[in-house]
């Protein structure tokens, strides 16, 4: 049974950064909890959705947020630090694609630098980060994991499709850094988790 803790906005941000998932099992079920009638608005809008690694996860996050209408957001896969003005939550889809980087005219060093600067600015401004990795094994490996680690370590909540964390890479980081770890059985279910984080009771992934 899921227990959902009601915490004020400011306290929740601090709690998410410092405490393990309060009242939410680390092995979160695929769908948002059915007992979501009493949801907590954990993160606010407007949100900025971006992609670090150019593996298209950011695009999928856009799809999920659009479908759930959980939060007002803008999207820019190449967002820089100055795009954070007025933003209340930064949602980062992470996972590297050499094709995506090439299409964006970036090499991995340039993308890493952009990501670092963006995350550092978010931290400076007190903007919480939700990290999302649903690319599976295709978005793991030496290059991807350098991006993956950076984003995961900077997140207040990290949502991962189980197929991309078979080796416990993300789980270990979250445990070490006390980051809320949300694993989903199916990729679209990440949308339900996101909706819940933004305080909306989302439909089950099957609908």
């Amino acid at each position, binding site marked *: 049974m899921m227990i959902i803790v009601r915490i004020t906005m400011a306290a929740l941000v601090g709690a998410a950064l410092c405490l393990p998932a309060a009242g939410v099992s680390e092995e979160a079920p695929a769908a948002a909890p059915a007992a979501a009638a009493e949801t907590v608005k954990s993160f606010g809008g407007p949100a900025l959705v971006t992609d670090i690694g150019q593996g298209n996860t950011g695009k999928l996050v856009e799809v999920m947020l659009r479908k759930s209408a959980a939060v007002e957001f803008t999207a820019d896969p190449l967002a820089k630090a100055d795009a954070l003005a007025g933003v209340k939550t930064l949602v980062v889809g992470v996972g590297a694609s050499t094709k995506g980087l090439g299409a964006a005219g970036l090499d991995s060093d340039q993308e890493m630098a952009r990501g670092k600067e963006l995350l550092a600015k978010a931290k400076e401004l007190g903007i919480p980060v939700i990290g999302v990795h649903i690319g599976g094994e295709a978005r793991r*490996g030496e290059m991807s994991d350098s991006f993956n680690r950076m984003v995961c370590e900077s997140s207040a909540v990290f949502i991962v499709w189980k197929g991309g964390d078979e080796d416990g890479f993300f789980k270990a980081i979250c445990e070490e850094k006390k980051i809320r770890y949300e694993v989903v059985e199916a990729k679209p279910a990440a949308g339900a988790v996101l909706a819940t984080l933004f305080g909306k009771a989302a439909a089950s992934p099957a609908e």
Partner: protein
Amino acid sequence: MKTLRLIAVAVLMGAAIPTAYGLAPVSRTSTSQYGMVAAAHPLAVEAGLRMMEKGGNAVDAAAAVAFAVGVAEPFGSGIGGDGIAMIYIASENKVDAFEYRCAAPMAATRNTYPESTRSEWTKGGKSFAVPGLIAGTCAFHEQYGQLSLAEVMQPAIDMAENGYAVGPALSKVISDSYDKIAANPEMVKMFLVDEFPPEVGQRLRNPMLAKTLRLIAENGPEIFYGGPIGEQFVAGTREQGSLITLDDLKAYKARRTEALSIDYRGMKIYAPTMPMGGIGVLLNLNLIERLPLDIAAGASSPQNLHLMAEAMKLGSRDRYAVSGDPMFTKIPTEWLLSDEYSDQRAKLVNPSRALTVAEIPVGPVDQGPGSTTHFTIMDAKGNAVSITQTLGGYFGVGVTAPGLGIVLNDQMKNFSPSASSPNALYPGKRMNSTQSPVIVTKDGQSILAMGSPGNYRITTTVTEVLVNILDFGLPLQEALDIPRISALYRDEILEVESGFSAETLAALAAKGHKVNKHGEMDMFFGGVHAVARDPKTGLLTGAADARRDGVSKGLAEPPKATATR
């Protein structure tokens, strides 16, 4: 040590592939006395085997695989694209080649495709050329097949209608191509599940394509090349800015050509002529034959890799200098493949250091993604079919022929921007290609057939795997599995796959190569599918590339009927 670990991983991968995507376990490598198919998707392999079980020959199997793989691996090829078929007829000890490269529409001139708008060549209706796959596949099948067109097309129709399982490679490519797919409502229906890239094991369907394929099966290729499907194709694509007319479709014909060949270490290696990439492979091999490979040191020794890289650079320089449509440009093929020219070029190779760019003049090259697909079939009689087919980039540029389920090629970008190039754009001309399926014979019998996708890495990968087998004597699957390199004349970069030791990479860098490292089993280096034949026993061995969802499978028992050709 790392190389050994990689080989061990590949061998384990080469054993049973798990049922992760809902299909019965199959293997990357297999043997059979009765018939063998190696291709990039298990369902495509099954399509080919079914034809041989019914009494069809290797060509019937090849035609079935050609249509089926276009359904099950839709980013790599399809009836919106083109290809090249090399066919070895055992009874005649002869290699026949069918070239069905895309062709520019007759309205494609320097006025309608001005150089100043070259970026527009890769968008919408201007991006694709007249597709040749239907014409080519039907042409070689009519020439050499035994079963009916309807029979060989049925597996593809079934897959498009009833669905096919998504493998790891397709799942990844759809993810990588998400923007392109999401921008086209027809492609969203064909390739996404609930607006998401499909996971491995999920099924995709393409009922529009099933209907199109069924009409072709019932009526022949003419229904596309001038008939009602062609009319619908033209009407739908002209709305997107295409210049292709019904007359362009009516005029399109597959070309039956003579294959190029060289003698290599006592064997004969056949590769396709222009505008395809066969000359690139043969140029490379002619050079390598003249270089002091140290066989005892192995295929992955730094010195052998260095020599192969230098051969690739020189070979590619010559290929790009002359590559074009032979109907429009004279190509000095005989001279380029002559002993005299090869001797001259081989002398340029320095065993101690990499040639610089200044030492190899630069020309234009397309650094595109490694799309395309390759499959190989051999039957019990020793007939062999080696086919590479493509759309160009993954899913082309995301343009479909409305209502027909066809993803279109993006081949117009493959013409050279230079008006003086042998590959310059002209109305009706076929752009050059690196596609290079090969067939190897010895003493009048087929012993090996193979090929690869992978953009310009096709010629380097095919070269490297051939050398692994023919020079270093590696077992077939191992020859595919060990890490690869690729080098091109235009810079000093040596593309290397993960798996070489740090010492090897350091030794290559010390010779002046600028090593650019890719991932393990990286699709950048293609996806080889090969079949070898023991001329003494007739035993067929298939091998497939772990870099794609490739598998090989042979007939377990003699077919129920016997092919008569």
